[in-house]
């Protein structure tokens, strides 16, 4: 018992600072919500978009903080090597770590869920799918610290169960809290009208989360799987099993997941470094995207219409999952790790070459991820809906989104535009994790702010649209600043020979195609949202200059 407590203490010792920071941030966010709700209640009651955004903030914030803590090595769940030689049974070693991780994941997810459930009542009351998305985001918490530092095989083996545990915890707390304590006030007719639902004033309008038997069995099975993996890994670390037995399996899984071939020599130093960057972290992107996408597909609800479920399959696999994972991988790929800088920074490679390699392996990862996701999408469509033509299903989704029902040519144009925008968004997300994404972040914040606050406290109605003069003013000023920032970064990159002038036409083509693709969705975007939409054109081109500039700064301090 004493040894077990010691092991738990070691886990606590290694993680408490980071976890305390996250807990403090969540608590602060909860307090802020209470204050905002008391002081400016109108925002929450009259603007579902804000409520929706607010539901993401605690989980996104917690993930961000975990990133920072992990980056500064202030949080880490792996035992120090010396712990493996303690005179305790491997069961105790694994059990302590296992219980601790489950407790942390469940607590973080539950805390995020509780905040959403108690303070963002409106969102949860009328949009049950939000629970799914926020719950899914909460599972990323588990993913971040479980996957970081592991290979794909081990990472996925750990991530999937962590996700299951997290979503179960989230759903349970949501159900318990919403059933017992909240929903004192039904949503107003205005709120419901905003998202196209029929108001039923005076009645509770939430959908109770489904807990089917397979969910519980699935959860239990994944926990057992996770325990087995952890136990085997610990036994291997303690040399209790021959390295070859486990190692053979690990090598087999790894060789498949690397998605590249081993060769005796590389064609050039750049090819060698492409291999290095790919194997270092980027190869994980397609696999995690696929795992996350399939996980989201698995949360489909039988109570929803087929069309709606079909849309969720496509949106999860081809939209949300690649974008979320891109942020994680982009972060891991570009963090200013001193170990990386000593190893790579001292090699005979120019900063431009390393940057080009980073950009190229990202493109390769996105392409493979979409290939895998499309295969999964086709399979899922076929199995779940007996849909034999996934392309036409995608076109139908787009027609639903855009409310455009036209010729097949129009449909194909819309499809191509959507694919391009999806790729561009994922591409941008790669570079949003770090400093290289500063410009992108500014654009994103700006666009989000414009989008979410355009119906704020001061607004004018113009026909069917709501226009906020304040945000137009802010938007214009910040847009101008951002354009200046992008031009300045590009100029600097060219001046320091980090970016070739010859690449500018290619970048211009990317921007032009993005404008064209965005133009196809002009009716969806709406005239009053064109400014933030146009800002996104700057986002995908920003990495071409910011990636080498940031790397140069990291490499030659």
């Amino acid at each position, binding site marked *: 018992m004493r040894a077990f407590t010691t092991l738990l203490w070691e886990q606590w010792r290694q993680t408490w600072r980071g976890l305390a920071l996250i807990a403090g941030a969540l608590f602060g966010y909860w307090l802020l919500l209470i204050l905002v709700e008391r002081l400016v209640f109108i925002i929450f009651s009259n603007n579902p978009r804000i409520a929706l955004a607010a539901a993401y903030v605690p989980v996104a914030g917690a993930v961000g903080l975990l990133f920072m803590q992990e980056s500064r090595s202030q949080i880490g769940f792996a035992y120090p090597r010396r712990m493996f030689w303690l005179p305790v049974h491997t069961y105790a070693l694994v059990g302590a770590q296992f219980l601790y991780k489950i407790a942390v994941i469940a607590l973080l997810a539950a805390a995020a869920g509780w905040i959403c459930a108690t303070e963002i009542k409106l969102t949860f009351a009328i949009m049950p799918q939000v629970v799914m998305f926020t719950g899914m985001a909460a599972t990323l918490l588990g993913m971040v610290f479980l996957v970081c530092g592991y290979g794909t095989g081990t990472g996925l083996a750990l991530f999937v169960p962590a996700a299951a545990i997290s979503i179960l915890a989230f759903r349970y707390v949501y159900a318990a809290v919403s059933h017992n304590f909240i929903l004192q006030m039904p949503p107003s007719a205005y709120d419901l009208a905003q998202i196209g639902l029929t108001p039923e004033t005076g009645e509770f309008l939430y959908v109770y989360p489904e807990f089917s038997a397979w969910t519980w069995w699935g959860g239990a099975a994944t926990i057992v799987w996770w325990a087995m993996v952890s136990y085997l890994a610990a036994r291997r670390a303690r040399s209790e099993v021959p390295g070859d037995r486990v190692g053979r399996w690990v090598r087999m899984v790894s060789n498949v997941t690397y998605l590249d071939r081993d060769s005796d020599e590389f064609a050039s130093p750049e090819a060698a470094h492409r291999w290095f960057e790919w194997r270092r972290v980027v190869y994980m992107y397609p696999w995690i995207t696929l795992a996350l996408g399939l996980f989201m597909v698995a949360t489909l609800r039988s109570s929803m219409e087929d069309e709606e479920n079909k849309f969720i399959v496509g949106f999860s696999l081809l939209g949300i999952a690649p974008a979320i994972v891109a942020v994680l991988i982009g972060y891991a790929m570009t963090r200013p790790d001193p170990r990386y800088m000593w190893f790579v920074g001292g090699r005979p*490679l120019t900063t431009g070459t390393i940057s080009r390699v980073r950009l190229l392996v990202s493109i390769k990862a996105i392409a493979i991820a979409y290939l895998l996701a499309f295969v999964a999408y086709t399979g899922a469509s076929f199995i779940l809906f007996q849909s034999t033509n996934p392309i036409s299903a995608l076109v139908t989704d787009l027609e639903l989104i855009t409310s455009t029902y036209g010729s097949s040519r129009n449909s194909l144009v819309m499809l191509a535009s959507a694919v391009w925008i999806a790729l561009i968004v994922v591409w941008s997300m790669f570079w949003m994790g770090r400093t290289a994404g500063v410009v992108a972040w500014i654009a994103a914040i700006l666009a989000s702010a414009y989008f979410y606050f355009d119906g704020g406290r001061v607004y004018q109605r113009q026909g069917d649209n709501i226009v906020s003069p304040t945000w137009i003013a802010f938007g214009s000023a910040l847009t101008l600043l951002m354009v200046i920032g992008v031009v300045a970064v590009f100029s600097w990159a060219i001046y320091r020979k980090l970016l070739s002038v010859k690449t500018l036409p290619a970048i211009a083509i990317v921007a032009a195609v993005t404008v064209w693709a965005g133009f196809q969705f002009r009716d969806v975007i709406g005239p009053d949202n064109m400014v933030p939409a146009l800002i996104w054109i700057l986002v995908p081109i920003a990495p071409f200059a910011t990636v080498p500039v940031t790397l140069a700064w990291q*490499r030659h301090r």
Partner: protein
Amino acid sequence: MEPVVIAKNLTRKYRRVTALDDFNLTVPEGQVLGLVGENGAGKSTLIQHILGMLRAQSGTMRVFGLDPVQEPVKVLSRIGYLSENRDMPGWMRVRELMRYCHSLYPGWDPKYAEELRELFELDPTAKLRTLSLGQTAKTGLLAALAHKPDLLVLDEPSSGLDPVVRRDILGAIFRSVAHEGRTVLFSSHLLEEVELVADRIAMVHAGKLMIHDTLDQIKTEHHRVTLRSSNGQSSAPTLPGTLSSEQSGLEWKVVCFAPESELRASAQSAGHEIVSIERPSLDDIFVARAGTPINSGRD
């Protein structure tokens, strides 16, 4: 012959801490230079400047006559280095590291790399994160040596190596590299080791270069004098070039930077009896100069 490394008035500050203060150093070709100093003296900062990982805030750094920040490929392809923390990617296998480095360095000699791997008894299939501290250091040495660099830069190369490897293998490597007309710059805490292998020594203290000369010259110019005062003098005796003095009973031990004849004459005229005049160890010289043992300082 053009010097391999020239640091001129190099200054580096980390916020309020000055790591290098108007630092000047010239490393001639074909020499083994031992860089000694306590933790935080500025040795690693100097090495980072040589590798172009730090940009000169003021002053200049030239390696093979080039700025390593502006010309990383030309400079770094001629350098082999080992960092103090043996920073290597844990996911790589030894064989993969050799393959990666082979493609990056035009001068990589696969036969020599294999010889080193066998000499160091490294398993080619082992992942770097599973290696012991000593094995990691050996792997780093392999990566630094196998392209036969014109300049070998090693930050605390002995750290983690067992005494046999440290004395026999490392020494042999240094001698072989220098014998081929190539240059070695290494930092170390172990002054006995530096004495064994270095041709020249640069002592660094608080970001400044205290001494830079050949080992013989440094040893010839410094003396440790043991004096006995006839009148039971309680204050330290004044000898030319006194760097430090220490009382032990009736005797005084003084480390001086002056010719022996001058010391004898001065002691005689002051009425001191010279018990002995010896060549001090590098450690004595460092303590006398810096006023602090080499193993002190911040980490």
